């Protein structure tokens, strides 16, 4: 095994309210591929951002090629040879491949750009990597796979010694992944060190040498890939103790009627043949890793995004939902993970937001009955214990938890019986989180049916009566809470080893 090129030791980083990295260690060697794994929010990306200078660490040391370093920005990291290949491609479609590769450092001939030289250099680079791409081709004409190759080539062209791949395979086909692996193997031979972030177990097994696992911002351990199993890795990823009492059995009676039935819902790559049932008074958890297609499923169901096919039944009756208007008509309310963008109008008052979906109930002729509006809004403020000086307060001035309560009030005022909570506690502090949980349990007990999309394992195990697990746009399983464990959920949420 090669010598160590990069060591991160005791890296600590806090954001307001979050201890994102808690004394994390990482070691990368020349000519190896190190997998970096962990659940959503484990701190993988944060760690890489600290390394490449996007974030400043609070404490800890980074040693690179035997010297302690602290990169101020990605440019500095690049110049030193530490390059990140992002999941989203940062390419300009209307420029040629060569122009993209050398953007910001174009070859010049006097004051004009020397395209000929750039094309030659790009060609040399691709030859070195054994990739067949025409440097004069327009970037937008390439497949996503080829574009990813260009990203890698660009990284190599910086004379990189350490390359970080942040979920590089997310958008690639099997064949493209295979091609990418060929390049990675080639780079290994050239003694380049690589960090490979991915959720896909099969890829980890195929391409990496060692696996470092993180959990909740801490370093868990490092394994030799060929000596470990998928179960070993999952156990390290989820092996936390759940402090908040998890639900042990479903609170829903066995004969509770089905209020919502979704059959073979399809909407693009992220929603493929998803089917499930929701019972009255049930909290149905939707678990899965980033990009599993849970939000996309909810949005397609709600009519926020177009769907290709699929049947939806409400209380046994087949319905057509083509827009949020339709969904709301059938009593479905959607609470987005991004409240500020999709949930509330922050520059409007608590009262105005509360009545947003049911303003027709507050009309007196052509005028809005503001007294009635304020009274009803106040009733919900009281019922949900929303902390606000008054219903005429602008929502922008409320805290995250209280903003969430305003969104809940909006759907309750509309009398929605099916509520889709998409990451209901994201960005909400611990105390307010518990309040939201209590509220959801109360709503379910009162007969509302809830779909809860959550990326937090503890939240899933604490709240759900039943859990649907998705992976890469497909439903991979359904578990009753009585049988649910972190391990079997994570097993379904990650791709099988082929």
């Amino acid at each position, binding site marked *: 095994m090669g010598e160590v090129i990069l060591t991160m030791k005791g890296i600590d980083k806090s954001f307001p309210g979050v201890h994102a990295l808690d004394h994390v260690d990482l070691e990368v060697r020349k000519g190896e591929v190190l997998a970096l794994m962990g659940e959503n929010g484990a701190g993988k990306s944060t760690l890489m951002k600290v390394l490449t200078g996007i974030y400043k660490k609070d404490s800890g040391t980074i040693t690179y090629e035997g010297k302690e370093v602290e990169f101020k920005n990605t440019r500095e990291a690049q110049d030193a040879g530490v390059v990140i290949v992002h999941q989203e491609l940062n390419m300009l479609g209307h420029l040629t491949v060569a122009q993209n590769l050398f953007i910001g450092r174009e070859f010049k001939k006097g004051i004009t750009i020397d395209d000929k030289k750039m094309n030659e250099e790009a060609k040399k680079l691709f030859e070195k990597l054994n990739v067949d791409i025409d440097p004069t081709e327009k970037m937008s004409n390439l497949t996503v796979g080829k574009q990813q190759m260009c990203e890698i080539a660009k990284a190599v062209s910086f004379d990189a010694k350490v390359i970080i791949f942040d979920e590089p395979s997310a958008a690639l086909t099997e064949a493209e992944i295979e091609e990418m692996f060929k390049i990675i193997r080639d780079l290994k031979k050239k003694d380049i060190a690589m960090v490979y972030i991915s959720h896909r177990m099969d890829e980890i097994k195929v391409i990496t040498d060692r696996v470092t696992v993180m959990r909740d911002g801490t370093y868990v351990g490092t394994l030799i890939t060929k000596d470990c199993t998928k179960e070993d890795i999952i156990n390290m990823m989820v092996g936390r103790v759940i402090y908040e009492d998890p639900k042990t059995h479903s609170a829903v009676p066995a004969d509770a009627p089905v209020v919502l039935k979704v059959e073979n819902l399809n909407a693009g790559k992220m929603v493929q043949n998803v089917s499930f049932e929701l019972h009255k008074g049930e909290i149905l958890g939707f678990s899965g890793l980033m990009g599993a297609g849970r939000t996309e499923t909810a949005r397609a169901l709600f009519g926020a995004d177009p769907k290709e096919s699929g049947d939806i039944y409400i209380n046994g009756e087949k319905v057509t939902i083509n827009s*949020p208007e339709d*969904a709301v008509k059938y009593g479905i309310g959607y609470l987005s993970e991004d409240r500020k963008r999709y949930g509330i109008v922050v*520059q409007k008052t608590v009262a105005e937001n509360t009545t*947003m*979906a049911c303003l027709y109930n507050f009309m007196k002729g052509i*005028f*809005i009955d503001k007294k009635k509006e304020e009274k009803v809004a106040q009733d919900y403020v009281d019922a949900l214990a929303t902390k606000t000086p008054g219903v005429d307060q602008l929502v922008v001035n409320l805290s995250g938890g209280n903003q969430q309560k305003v969104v809940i009030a909006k759907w309750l005022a509309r009398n929605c019986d099916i509520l889709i909570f998409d990451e209901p506690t994201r960005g909400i502090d611990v105390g307010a989180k518990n309040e939201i949980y209590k509220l959801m349990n109360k709503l379910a007990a009162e007969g509302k049916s809830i779909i809860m999309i959550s990326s937090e394992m503890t939240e899933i195990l604490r709240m759900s009566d039943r859990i649907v697990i998705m992976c890469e746009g497909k439903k991979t399983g359904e578990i009753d809470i009585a049988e649910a464990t972190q391990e079997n959920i994570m097993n379904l949420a990650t791709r099988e080893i082929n």
Partner: protein
Amino acid sequence: MEKIKQNAFVKKAGFNRIILVGVMLLMYLAFGALTKGNFFGMSRILNIMNYVYFLGFLSLGVTFVIATGGIDFSIGPVMFCCALVSGYSFLTHGVPMAVALVLSVVIGLLFGIFNGYLVAYWKVPPFIVSMASMNIAKGIAAVFTKTQSVSWPQSSDPNGWYRNFVKMGNIPTGLIIFLVAAIICGIILNKTKAGRYILCLGSNKEAVRLSGVDVKKWEMLAYVICGILVGIAAIFFVGAYTTVQPGYGDQYNNEAIAGCVMGGTSMAGGLASIGGTVIGVLIISLLQQGILALGFSKDYQFIITGFIVIAAVYADVSARRRKN
């Protein structure tokens, strides 16, 4: 109970309006002093008011559009198109005066529907739509009138009764109608479902859509209201000046938008003040007449209103930036 900052934004809007009224009075006094009292004469006041009426209707209209976060650069030329087509119909085709007046409003309405539909349903950017319909309006007017100016009948003419909308003897009917219209606009914007949804979608269209609201319909409605008001503005324009020439009208876009934005309506949408628009229009009109009274040509006014729009929008943008 945690302490939350009291709604500073609304308070500030009120404060700004007080400042604006002060600015208006100071301007009036300054022009008066510079013209050695000439500016305080009755005829000058009538001139100012004539300008206020048509510009006011334009500005009220564009306030609804800007409240949705959109923009309309076609209002001036559309107003001219309304005045030219209906006036020409009256003069050449023997259309009765009453019908001609209704026609003017209908033409404005049609442009509003056209603009609104393209913006709301086809998602064509408002800037592009209104730039295009500005030229369409100019073109239609020129073709229809064979590029000739149209002179509406004078007060002495039996058909000159339409001028009573502006001034009936010594009664400033125009002022009364304009203020009533402004109050109605204020009620629509603040007390009806349409106004509520127009303001909300201007602030966050996606959140309103995901609340199950038909945002396209309400967004289009803002342009339709604007179109109707532009059609009415045309009546007040000819009521004051009688003669309209094809190919013009652009200069009033800037002035109407300046009046609206100066009054506290945010170009980013979601925040609009009818009261502010009325004061803004008064200031613009004062400025217009003041500059003429001082003996400068109208061109100076273009320069000044141009800078006013930039200053007002910059003030709005920087106020928002401070808040974030």
